[in-house]
């Protein structure tokens, strides 16, 4: 197959691809280890969260860090200590991050798999989830990296936390299935906005692409408030595909909250948030094809000179910048791109930065990247001003 178009391209198909999502208000469970009420505004309790495998991360309000745990089929909200506002410039650079991380964990870089990164908006500390393979078994670790490059483990014992169970597929059939093993659920991305945590996921068994909204503070009554919603992904194709969302971003478009969702291979689609709550079926709008053979890894929004832009990190493309104006203006894509790897729809600028594995917003004008250098193969953790891409 060499020389031919390598991947899917769904994009193209974008044209009409239908994606089944389930939108649900998830129930929440409390850990038995919770002992006392603290963190009052968010109904957090002090205890030790029973995290099996810390994966996807997102920061919420007031030092609350959401930790996705695919193994446990749950999201944990953990309040991390407030390190206070960072002083000085938001620019920092941590070279040889892989070596520093391995040293802090008493191992070597080849035993590490970095799973996600989120930046604390006030302290500018980067929180990173890492899977460590040790002779005693795999260990799941949360670490904090200061702008000065100090790496330390974050203790997750006796911390204020709450937990939302999300593994159960929210359909009526589940009521008959008490006691059955939970289906594996993989959390592919999370984002917090205005009292809600958005969670995209994929079940390996039913091949269900799922999207959930969890009100935060998490509801305390287990099993309450589940609503099933199916979302159509783009308009005209006759055939369904249940492609998973690999990265998404809550985004204001035309003055209304929307979801910008990136799919593997590599369409971008928008969904009005209002429709994700109230209608049984919502038709998404495909606004761009980023080029086949690729999948978006992370998306953030930054403003520079009064203009809003979305930055997209990719598995098989450079870092991209797309103007929100262009996303708002984009006509729905209804035809396939003419050839392999061709991009179409809302235009993007290919920024001269490759190997970006993780991306998160630091403040209105800065973001943080975890990048693999093409010459040395080393990992660099670094903050960048949006302005550097305009000069």
């Amino acid at each position, binding site marked *: *197959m060499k020389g031919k*178009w*390598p*991947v*899917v*391209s*769904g*994009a*193209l*198909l974008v044209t009409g*691809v239908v994606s089944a999502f389930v939108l649900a208000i998830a129930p929440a469970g409390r850990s038995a280890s919770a002992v006392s009420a603290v963190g009052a505004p968010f109904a957090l309790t002090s205890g030790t969260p029973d995290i099996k*495998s810390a*994966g*996807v991360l997102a920061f919420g309000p007031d030092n609350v860090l959401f930790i996705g745990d*695919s*193994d446990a*089929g749950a999201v944990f909200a953990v309040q991390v200590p407030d390190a206070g506002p960072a002083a000085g410039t938001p620019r920092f650079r941590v070279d040889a991050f892989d070596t520093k991380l391995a040293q802090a964990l008493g191992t070597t870089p080849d*035993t590490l*798999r970095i*799973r996600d990164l989120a930046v604390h908006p006030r302290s500018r500390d980067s929180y990173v989830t890492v*899977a460590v*393979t*040790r*002779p*005693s*078994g*795999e*260990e*799941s670790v949360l670490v904090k990296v200061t702008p000065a490059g100090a790496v330390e483990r974050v203790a997750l014992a006796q911390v204020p936390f709450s937990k939302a169970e999300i593994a159960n*597929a929210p*359909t009526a*059939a589940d009521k*008959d*299935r008490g006691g*059955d*093993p939970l*289906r*594996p659920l*993989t959390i*592919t991305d999370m984002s917090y906005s205005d009292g809600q945590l958005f969670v995209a996921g*994929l079940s*390996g*068994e*039913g*091949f*269900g692409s799922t999207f959930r909204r969890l009100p935060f503070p998490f509801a305390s009554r287990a099993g309450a408030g589940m609503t099933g919603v199916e979302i159509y992904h783009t308009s005209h*194709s*006759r*055939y*369904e*595909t249940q*492609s*998973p969302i*690999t990265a998404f971003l809550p985004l204001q478009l035309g003055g209304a909250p929307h979801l910008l969702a990136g799919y*593997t*291979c590599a369409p971008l689609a928008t969904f009005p948030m209002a429709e994700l709550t109230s209608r049984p079926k919502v038709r998404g709008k495909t606004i761009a094809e980023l080029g*086949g053979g690729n*999948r978006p*890894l992370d998306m953030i929004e930054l403003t520079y000179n009064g203009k809003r832009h979305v930055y997209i990190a990719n*598995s098989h493309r450079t870092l991209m910048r797309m103007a929100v104006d262009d996303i708002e203006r984009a006509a729905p894509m209804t035809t396939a791109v003419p050839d392999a790897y061709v991009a179409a729809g809302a235009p993007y600028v290919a920024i001269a930065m490759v190997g970006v594995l993780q991306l998160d917003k630091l403040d209105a004008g800065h973001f943080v990247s975890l990048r693999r250098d093409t010459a040395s193969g080393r990992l660099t953790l670094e903050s960048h001003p949006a302005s550097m891409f305009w000069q």
Partner: protein
Amino acid sequence: MPRRRPLRPLTWAIAIASTTAIVLVFALRPSSRSTAAAAGPRPRAAGSPSAAPVSATAIAGVFPSASVLPANLLRFSIEFSAPMSRGRAYEHVRLVDSANREVDRAFLILDEELWDHARTRFTLLFDPGRLKRTLRANVELGTPLREGRRYRLTIDREWPDATGRALAGRVEKSFSVGPADRAKPRVADWRVDSPPAALSRDPLRVSFPEPLDRALLLSSLTIVDARGARIAGRVTLGAEERSWRLTPDQPWSSGAYRVRVDPRLEDLAGNNLTRVFDVDRTADEREAAPQTERPFAIAPRRAPATSP
């Protein structure tokens, strides 16, 4: 990205010669039975010091177990005897055709790999864009599997388990490809084989005309009595995942029962009871709800025959 590594001629010769579905290069015993309680091999806890295995982690099974698979097969699942590492799966699985060429971009690569909670079962999805007709990838590349040809799924010994150690051996699953399956499984086509006798603990067996997805099958069927109460017991699957057996914890009572099916149960091509995976959505939506129950009865035990 999958690595391209030529297989040794000897290995290849063994694979060609083999008529069985799985070539076990190392002496591994394939698991043919499973239970709902321990859906697959019994996992060891990851992370605890006591978890250090005495023997190397082995591949306990590769599913579907049938040796003929549909051209639009949706997924493989690979079961292990102990928890595995995370983030290394796609380096260690390859689909190879009969000319020993790797089938490029056959699988959907996800940053977050699809593992079960115990991390002893890995789900490997084919790229759905290549399975669905008219999608760009399907038109340009075709389906990864072509009807009438033979393939091997190869799994490296170097795939590290959760302790970083290599597997007990490399495993290949050799199979041939039949026609694409674009029909929903129909409960009406199933057979409830000779219901067990009242007061016995004999298993009840339900057979299907086609193999069904193993993981979903283990959790999708229940037996309920006339009052809707669920019959507890041990579930096992038959050869090629073409049958399901429940051995009840308590002896059967006579009376009416139903096999109840979760409509999300899928066949090997991802077709479930309510929709075909590769579906014309607009046409499909008008179809009636599927049959999800199958009644059967257990007759009262007859008194021993007595002469008049």
